[in-house]
């Protein structure tokens, strides 16, 4: 069978569109719809939007799930806490990841695949296992405390586990590759003669970096930051295993609403609000990407 260019193109574009439609848009619509229902003890555990009364359809939209989010301070504080954890983790990833990506991009061409491999290597072990491993390191009689006590640096074990610090460690450790890889992809393309030109015009190395390399890597910084920030906001496993018990993140709230309280409408409303919070940075990113593309032409 001969595939014409047009039908081939439609096929290539069609697969991702179908994917997004089935696995993203339709579930989103379902969640969106549930968020406007009320909880009830039935299967499914929420009220239908459309009911039939005297032979004509009646649309019943309930705002109660959204209203509830703002009446109980648990939700607002969980949102704010999640944003804070995600923002701090993103900054830490950037601070750690930028020099690493820069070093890889500047290393000898033969070394680069090896170094990139080392960045990706942790993915070969289960994510859950790696987070559990941190419990072993951070707990009161864990590796870190034992070593510090043995060396006499401390006399009582430090409370490391179930702190913000542990959550930051977990998130930074898990998401660092997502910061490094887009940064590397950006920095690797930089033209070394631009730095020579900056030096030639009188800029010391640090100034040349600030004026030339940094602004040119801006798109990489944004891409890496979003790749860390967005999943970190909704992170569930890391704060549950390593984090505080008095302050939970919004991903945990969502899961509790769904599985513990079986309040699907509130769980859906929580999810929709997370999405709204994240849409703004995503759109910013896309605008930036478009501008990059235009500049590259």
């Amino acid at each position, binding site marked *: 069978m001969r595939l014409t260019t047009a039908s081939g193109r439609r096929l290539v574009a069609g697969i991702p569109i179908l994917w997004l439609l089935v696995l993203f848009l339709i579930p989103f619509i379902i969640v969106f719809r549930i968020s406007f229902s009320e909880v009830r003890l039935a299967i499914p555990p929420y009220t239908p939007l459309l009911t039939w009364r005297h032979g004509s359809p009646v649309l019943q939209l309930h705002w109660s799930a959204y209203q509830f989010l703002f009446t109980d301070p648990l939700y607002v504080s969980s949102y704010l806490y999640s944003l804070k954890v995600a923002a701090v983790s993103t900054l830490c990833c950037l601070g750690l990841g930028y020099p690493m990506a820069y070093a890889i991009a500047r290393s000898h061409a033969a070394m680069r695949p090896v170094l990139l491999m080392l960045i990706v290597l942790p993915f070969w072990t289960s994510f859950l296992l790696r987070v559990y491993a941190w419990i072993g390191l951070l707990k009161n009689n864990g590796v870190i405390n034992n070593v510090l006590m043995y060396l006499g640096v401390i006399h009582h074990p430090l409370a490391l586990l179930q702190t913000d610090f542990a959550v930051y460690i977990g998130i930074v450790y898990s998401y660092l590759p997502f910061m490094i890889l887009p940064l590397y992809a950006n920095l690797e393309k930089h033209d070394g003669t631009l730095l*020579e*030109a900056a030096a*030639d*015009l*009188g*800029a010391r190395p640090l*100034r*040349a970096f600030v004026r030339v390399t940094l602004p040119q890597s801006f798109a990489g910084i944004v891409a890496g930051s979003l790749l860390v920030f967005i999943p970190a906001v909704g992170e569930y496993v890391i704060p549950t295993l390593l984090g505080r018990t008095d302050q939970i993140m919004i991903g945990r709230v969502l899961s509790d609403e769904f599985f513990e309280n079986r309040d699907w409408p509130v769980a859906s409303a929580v999810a929709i609000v997370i999405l709204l919070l994240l849409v703004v940075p995503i759109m910013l990113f896309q605008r930036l990407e478009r501008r990059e593309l235009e500049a*590259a*032409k």
Partner: protein
Amino acid sequence: MPPAADPDSAYVRIANLTKRFGDFVAVDDVSLDIRRGEIFCLLGGSGSGKTTLLRMLAGFELPSAGTIRIDGADMSAIPPYERPVNMMFQSYALFPHMSVEKNVAFGLEQEGRGREQIRHQVGEILDIVKMGGFGARKPHQLSGGQRQRVALARALVKRPKLLLLDEPLAALDKKLREHTQFELLNIQQRLGVTFIVVTHDQEEAMTLGTRLGVMNHGRIAQIGTPSDIYESPATRFVADFIGSVNMFEGRVSDDGADCLRIDCTELGCTVRAERTVSCTRGAIVWTAIRPEKINISRQPPAAAGQPGLTENAVRGTVREIAYMGDMSIYLVQIDSGSVMRVTLPNVMRGAERPIARQESVWLSWHGSSPVVLTE
């Protein structure tokens, strides 16, 4: 006003400069004096070491041995950002995220000049390179020729003691290149900055350079004015590299006080040349004759005697003619079997009975035309 050029002062003094990359010697014991206010062209093929030499002047490469002095100051320990030298890169290396104005202002900002002064100087230099109205554009919004001007303005705005230009015209098309060459000369004279130009393009070197240095395998093969290099090449490499040349090996048969006679079996005649080199009878030498210094005619030249005893004249058959407009190139197979290249200007329109392919012709040249080379 540019400072008066003192022909004897060495403004840039390069002494015994060597650069090794592992086992490879890129620049091999080069010594070179460059005068204030001149345009010095380093000419050579790829891998000749010319770019490495330029990068050492800019400070991007450290010499393995030897010294560079600019205006008396030793540059050995001076990093690129403190040298009184600016460079125009072959790729122009304009900062893509900055406007034209910002690009040009970059160097002045590093010196911590005032905002108003920077604005004034940037405007002035952009006017000189005729880019006055383009200050707000980004480099990707400019044509190749415009980018070249911005790169030049950025390198000149700090009024460096020495401007290094790496293949400054290579990225431009032919018409624009010719135009830009003369403009570059104009700007150089106006500002009086000393230029060192690296190029592989001999035409560019000839028109731009007050003096040329021909480089080969990391060494300077010859230094001289463009006409020195073209008319009196010192070695076979230089003769062959600059322009085209007919070169034949021969043996000195007579070394008179002012003229040499050389038997060339390859050529099938005796070459009589002015005595410019010292050589003894029996020595193996090479004679080089430029294609435009050869006459082509149907009649035997008056000086030619009997066949077999000719001097500075050979017979041959025209094999190819390439019409170039302003001149024509003739490839003539001479009776000894070698092929000689002859160029003739097309002085007349529609000349009567031009020499055609397969015609039998005489080639002859004046005694001053051949250059005798011993190495």
